[in-house]
């Protein structure tokens, strides 16, 4: 194994550059190093101005998603040696505006997440003194997978629909909406359905499944969207056949 690898990194500063360019850095190629370690090596030893987000370095905070050789990856969980002999190209996540170097603007996701009401909605609430709402392990299992989303946004970078239609709510927000819909403690499905059955909601998804492919936490947003479409269609049929049962 060579002891160095070339890292090609997007550099962009809005004050200085008209458009992004690639800079190449030689970094040590070490067995236990992930791509994020190489970026930190550059920042610490070579050029302190290289900017990127990171935090936990254990694949759970969701900060360090970037394109690695064209694929969306958590850079803290992507080993350099998998790309030997190189070069390894590191670029900002696709489908988001670039703010600086490897940092993208993600406030669009936050707005979309808020819009799907990702919280428990109930018509009535029993007091805390009466203890927990019972939920069997089987009931927990129906939504658990969708609750594993770390908001890393790799799925948005992979989603061809979001790339073309920025109004599309996107895989993570839809999976999280479904996470609450499937939760036995929640009574908010109708409210969320109103929001999601609009054109920029679930109908935008063409079931390409790229989101599920790239998800580092096996959330399966594509599956969530399919489930959602089924429910929405059933609800729509019901409202056509039995309009008096509607909301």
């Amino acid at each position, binding site marked *: 194994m060579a002891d160095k690898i070339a890292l090609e990194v997007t550099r962009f500063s809005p004050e200085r550059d008209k458009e992004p360019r690639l800079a190449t850095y030689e970094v040590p190629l070490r067995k236990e190093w992930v791509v994020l370690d190489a970026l930190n090596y550059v920042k610490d030893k070579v050029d302190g*101005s290289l900017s990127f987000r990171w935090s936990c370095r254990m694949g759970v905070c969701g900060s360090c998603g970037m394109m690695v050789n064209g694929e969306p990856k958590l850079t803290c969980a992507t080993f350099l040696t998998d790309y030997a002999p190189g070069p390894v190209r590191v670029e900002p996540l696709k489908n988001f505006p670039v703010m600086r170097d490897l940092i993208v603007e993600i406030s669009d996701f936050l707005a979309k997440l808020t819009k799907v009401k990702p919280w428990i909605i109930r018509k009535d609430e029993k007091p805390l003194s009466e203890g927990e709402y019972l939920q069997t392990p089987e009931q927990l299992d129906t939504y658990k997978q969708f609750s594993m989303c770390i908001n890393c946004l790799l799925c948005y970078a992979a989603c061809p629909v979001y790339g073309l239609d920025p109004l599309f709510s996107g895989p993570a927000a839809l999976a999280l909406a479904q996470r609450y819909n499937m939760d036995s403690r929640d009574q908010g499905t109708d409210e969320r359905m109103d929001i999601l059955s609009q054109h920029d909601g679930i109908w935008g998804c063409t079931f390409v499944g790229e989101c599920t492919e790239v998800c580092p936490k096996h959330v399966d947003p594509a599956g969530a969207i399919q489930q959602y479409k089924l429910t929405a269609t059933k609800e729509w049929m019901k409202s056509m056949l039995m309009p008096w049962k509607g909301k």
Partner: protein
Amino acid sequence: MLDISSTDVLLVGGGGAGLRAAIAVAEMNPNLNVAVVSKVYPMRSHTVSAEGGAAGAIRPDDSLDEHAYDTISGGDWLSDQNAVEVFVKEAPEELLRLERWGCPWNREPDGHIAVRPFGGMKKERTWFAADKTGFHMLHTLFQTSLKYKAVTRYDEYFATKLLIDDGRVQGVVAIELASGKIQAITAKAVILCTGGCGRVFPFTTNAAIKNGDGMSLAYRAGAPLKDMEFIQYHPTGLPFTGILITEAARSEGGYMLNKDGYRYLQDYNLGKPQPTPVLRSMELGPRDRLSQAFVKEFEKGRTTDSPYGAVVHLDLRHLGEKKINAKLPFVRELCLKYENLDPVTELIPVRPVVHYMMGGIHTDINGATPLKGLYAAGEAACVSINGANRLGSNSLTELLVFGARAGVSAAAFAQEQIAPSRHLLSQAADEETRLEDQFLNKTGGTERISTIREEMQKTMEAGAGIYRSGASLQESADKLRQLQERFMNINIDDRSRTFNTELTTALELAYMLDVAESMIQCALHRTESRGAHQRTDFPARDDQKFLAHSLVTRTEGGAPRVSYSPVTITRWPPAERVYGK
């Protein structure tokens, strides 16, 4: 140019404690505006990495007194017992509130909340969401917080200074990272929920963002830090990365083995080995004692060498694939991904790793600091319930109980205050000048930020590790003074205002240097051994002199001054810590 905005209650930090506090304010008085100022998007906060669980007595065979006793004895009698009593009482209701908000707690087959055993706890009382409890708690809190209109988020704003006028904290100065704009955000009350500062050490489970920001902000503003010498080493970190293997791995039945495959904890007054876990015994002893046992094993030559220091092994093989997948899926995922080994069939190499700060900003049981208008909660604060050694699964509950309490008391205080004064603007302008002169427009520096940081981490490990001595601490104190001076000569390449992470890295290093100094000074002055503070030159606990909290304040010239305040004892007089009996 300075931007100015204002709010009623301002949170610095959007992790578990910050979000719980924000919700508490919004629920108490919907007319109050709440600002959450965080240097990362809240769901990136380090609460996300917590694995094992959150303690709260709910089983019929358990009691609040037993939870209190475990916590107090675990803390080697340095916990304030009035705070512990409040904590254990409010713990179950806070955890239940999180259940209402959707936290996916593990359940019994009949649908009731499931609990698991944990280190140093005599009863099973740790609520858990597999081994991603912190992740689920944080996302539940964050998603729930989105429904409160009164909460305004300042995502990716980096706080640099507390604004103080008339003896009262009235806001912060923060940099909007996206634009580099320096902003004054005035407030009637400020709550610091910025977490701990494991990054002061070279080998830590802590995320990159944990730099003691809030501790340093409070310290610079004149508020005392408390019990800073008590630094928790978690006994099971993966070598090189420092990734945590949760204590739940042991509470589910994992064994700690030395290089001979021997369950060495039996040699350290922690009980006799049994095939299945015994509460408050062996692998379920407290973290300080387990980490100290590792050092002793190393000294006896019974650890295994690895490229990243000596290791012992955690053995989960006898638990079987099914149990590991059901109860410890993240442990398996982390081992496969980062160590390329499968705990179902292989031993996990582990070594003690810096994990948690028992100390922090001195607060009362309502989260109030001695500085008017300033509150703190979570790991950034020291109430103190954790004393000289925190028990696993008490900190996630702590951030709920004391996050809520700090929110409520800050809201009550804010309601009584008039709008902040105009004087603050000149202070904010001074801060803008400081940031520009010392960092953004600085030229001619020669020291690399990363070099100073690495030297600081090295001297902290050498001087203030699992075992310390007067000599090792003095050496670190001298070294830190040199590093403070060298910091004035740092080099900054980045001239951009947009997302200048070299600037934030420099500011974080300055915070860490403050916090490191406070730790060393507290450790130097405490000439006894208690909990996580083990002095080789003073190996015994000394209740006569040190049944007391260290309080460190910054004096006029910048030097730290250490004083003491008594520990509150209510019903549990100091006694010997007994495990394995």
